[in-house]
C-alpha cells in the first residue's frame, strides 16, 4: 500500500498519469463526437444528393404514363436516368405512388409491386420535406438488399408530368457513414495524439527540473526546521540550566537565609513572622519556578527517559482524579529532537484533556519502529465538534500542528461531542 502510494505522490508520475488519463478521455470523446458529427454530415450529404437526384435528374426525365406502369415509359425512363441515378454511394432507387405501388426502381422486379407506405413516407408525400432513416431490411420491399451493415434511406417528393405526387427514395450504404466518421476522426485523433505527445515531451523534462528544485528546497527547509527545533531545544535547555544554576540557587539560598534569620533569638514576633512569611513565599515561587523549568525542558529528556518524562507529565492528571496509563515501546535510539516532539505533543494534548475534557481516563501510548515513532493520546472526556473553530483549546491544537509540521511529522485530532478526543502523531525517524 505504502509502496504504491509513494510513486503516486511524485508530481512527475502524477503528471504522466493525468496526461495518460486525459489522453484516453480525449481519445474516447473524440470518437463519440466525431462519429456524431460524421453521421450528421453523412446524413446531410445523403439528403442533398437525394434532392439533387430527384429534382435534377429523375423529375425532368420522367415520361408521361410512367405512373400508370406503362412498360415503354419505364424502358425510356430507365435508359435515360439509370446510370445517372446509380452514382457514388447510391445503392437503390425507388419511386412510389401514394398507394404504395413502385412505379420505378433500378431493381426492375420491384416495378408494379405494391407495399404499404409507412407514416413517415406518407408524411413526406404530404409535406414535401426530405426525411431520412435507417432501412428495415426485414420489410418485403427490401428483399433484394444484401448489405450486411444496413442501408440509410432518404425520401423526398417529386411530381410526375401528369401532376401526381410521387415519393422518390434513395438508399445509401451505411458504410458511407463509417467512412465519413473515419475521415473526420483520423486526422483529429492524429492531431490530439501528437499534441499530447508534444505536451508530454516538453512537460516531463520541465516538470522533472521543477520537481527536483522543489525537492531540494523542501529538503533544505526540512533541515532548517530541524535545526530550528534543535536550536529551540538547545535554547530551552540553556535557559533551564541558567535558571537552575543561577536564579533558583540564589532563591533557594535566600529562602534558607531568611528561615535561619527568623530563628535568631531577640527578634520581635512581628518581624519573625514577616521573615518566615517571606521565606514561605520564596519557597512557593521556587516550586513554581522548578515546575516551569520542567515544562521548558524536563531533565533527562531523551529516548531512555521518555517513559519517565511522560509519567511525570501525567502525574497532575492522576492528582486531579483522572486515571492514567502510559506506555512507551520501540523508541530506543530515537534522536532527541524526535523525543522532544513526542513529549511536546503529549504535553499539549494532556494539558487540553485536563483543562477542557472532564475526562475520567487518559492514555498515552508511544510506539516506535526503525522508520517512525507514533504517539496516541486518548481521553474519554466530553469531546468537541471538529468543525467549531472557537472550541476550547483550538489555538493550542493549531500550535501543536504547526509544531509537529515544523518537526517533520503529521498530527491528526479526532473528536466528537460526548465521544472523547484522540490525538495521533507520526514523526519519521531520520
Amino acid at each position, binding site marked *: 500500500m505504502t509502496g504504491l502510494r509513494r510513486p503516486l505522490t511524485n508530481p512527475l508520475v502524477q503528471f504522466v498519469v493525468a496526461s495518460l488519463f486525459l489522453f484516453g478521455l480525449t481519445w474516447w470523446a473524440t470518437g463519440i463526437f466525431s462519429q456524431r458529427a460524421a453521421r450528421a454530415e453523412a446524413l446531410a450529404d445523403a439528403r442533398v444528393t437525394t434532392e439533387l437526384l430527384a429534382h435534377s435528374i429523375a423529375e425532368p426525365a420522367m415520361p408521361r404514363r410512367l405512373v400508370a406502369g406503362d*412498360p415503354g415509359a419505364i424502358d*425510356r425512363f430507365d435508359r435515360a436516368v439509370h446510370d445517372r441515378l446509380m452514382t457514388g454511394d447510391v445503392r437503390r432507387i425507388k419511386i412510389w405512388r401514394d398507394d404504395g405501388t413502385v412505379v420505378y426502381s433500378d431493381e*426492375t422486379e420491384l*416495378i*408494379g409491386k405494391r407495399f404499404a407506405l409507412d407514416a413517415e413516407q406518407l408524411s413526406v408525400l404530404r409535406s414535401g420535406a426530405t426525411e431520412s432513416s435507417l432501412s428495415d431490411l426485414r420489410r418485403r420491399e427490401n428483399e433484394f438488399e444484401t448489405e450486411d451493415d444496413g442501408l440509410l434511406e432518404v425520401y423526398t417528393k417529386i411530381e410526375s408530368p401528369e401532376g401526381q405526387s410521387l415519393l422518390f427514395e434513395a438508399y445509401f450504404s451505411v458504410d458511407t457513414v463509417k467512412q465519413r466518421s473515419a475521415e473526420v476522426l483520423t486526422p483529429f485523433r492524429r492531431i490530439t495524439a501528437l499534441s499530447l505527445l508534444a505536451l508530454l515531451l516538453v512537460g516531463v523534462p520541465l516538470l522533472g527540473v521543477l520537481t527536483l528544485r522543489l525537492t531540494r528546497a523542501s529538503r533544505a527547509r526540512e533541515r532548517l526546521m530541524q535545526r530550528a527545533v534543535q536550536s529551540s531545544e538547545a535554547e530551552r535547555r540553556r535557559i533551564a540550566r541558567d535558571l537552575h544554576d543561577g536564579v533558583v540557587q540564589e532563591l533557594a539560598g535566600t529562602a534558607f537565609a531568611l528561615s535561619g534569620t527568623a530563628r535568631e533569638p531577640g527578634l520581635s514576633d512581628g518581624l519573625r513572622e514577616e521573615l518566615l512569611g517571606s521565606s514561605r513565599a520564596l519557597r512557593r515561587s521556587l516550586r513554581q519556578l522548578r515546575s516551569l523549568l520542567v515544562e521548558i525542558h524536563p531533565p533527562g529528556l531523551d529516548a531512555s527517559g521518555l517513559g519517565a518524562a511522560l509519567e511525570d507529565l501525567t502525574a497532575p492528571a492522576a492528582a486531579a482524579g483522572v486515571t492514567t496509563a502510559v506506555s512507551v515501546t520501540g523508541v530506543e535510539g530515537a534522536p532527541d529532537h524526535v523525543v522532544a516532539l513526542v513529549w511536546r505533543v503529549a504535553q499539549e494534548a494532556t494539558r487540553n484533556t485536563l483543562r477542557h475534557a472532564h475526562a475520567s481516563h487518559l492514555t498515552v501510548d508511544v510506539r516506535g519502529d526503525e522508520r517512525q515513532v507514533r504517539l496516541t493520546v486518548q481521553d474519554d472526556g466530553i469531546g468537541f465538534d471538529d468543525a467549531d473553530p472557537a472550541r476550547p483549546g483550538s489555538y493550542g491544537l493549531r500550535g501543536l500542528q504547526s509544531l509537529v509540521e515544523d518537526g517533520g511529522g503529521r498530527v491528526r485530532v479526532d473528536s466528537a461531542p460526548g465521544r472523547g478526543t484522540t490525538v495521533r502523531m507520526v514523526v519519521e525517524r531520520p
Partner: protein
Amino acid sequence: MIARTVLAVTAVTALTLPGGLVAPAYASHGGANDVRAGGTCSGSAHWKLKAKPDDGRIEVEGEIDSNVAGQRWRWTFKHDGSVSARGSKRTAGRSGSFSVERRMANLSGPDHFVFRATHGKQTCRGTISF
C-alpha cells in the same frame, strides 16, 4: 438480378403483311440465355430479333437485311404493347442492313417485344418473348 432465367422458351414470330398474310418465321435459343427469332418481310428483306439478359435488364436487338444499301427505314420497339423506342436508320454495307439495340426493363412475368420496321410499302414485324 443480373442473369434472369428465361421464362419463355419459345419465341413466336410472325410476318404480318398489309393484307393480313402471314409468312413463316423461326425461333431458337442462341447462347445460354439468348432468345432469337427471324423471318422474311413483306418484300425481299429479312429481319432478325435477339433478346438476352444484360445486368438486370434485357438487351433487345433488331436487324433488317434488305440487300440494298442507302434505304431509310423507320423502326419501332414495343414492350408489352407499349412503344419503348422508335427511330429511323439507313441500311449500309454490301448486305444493305442495319441493326438497332435497346436495353429494356426486365419486368416481372414474361416480357413481350415487337420490332417493326417499314420502308415504303415494305414492312417487317417480329415478336419475341423473354
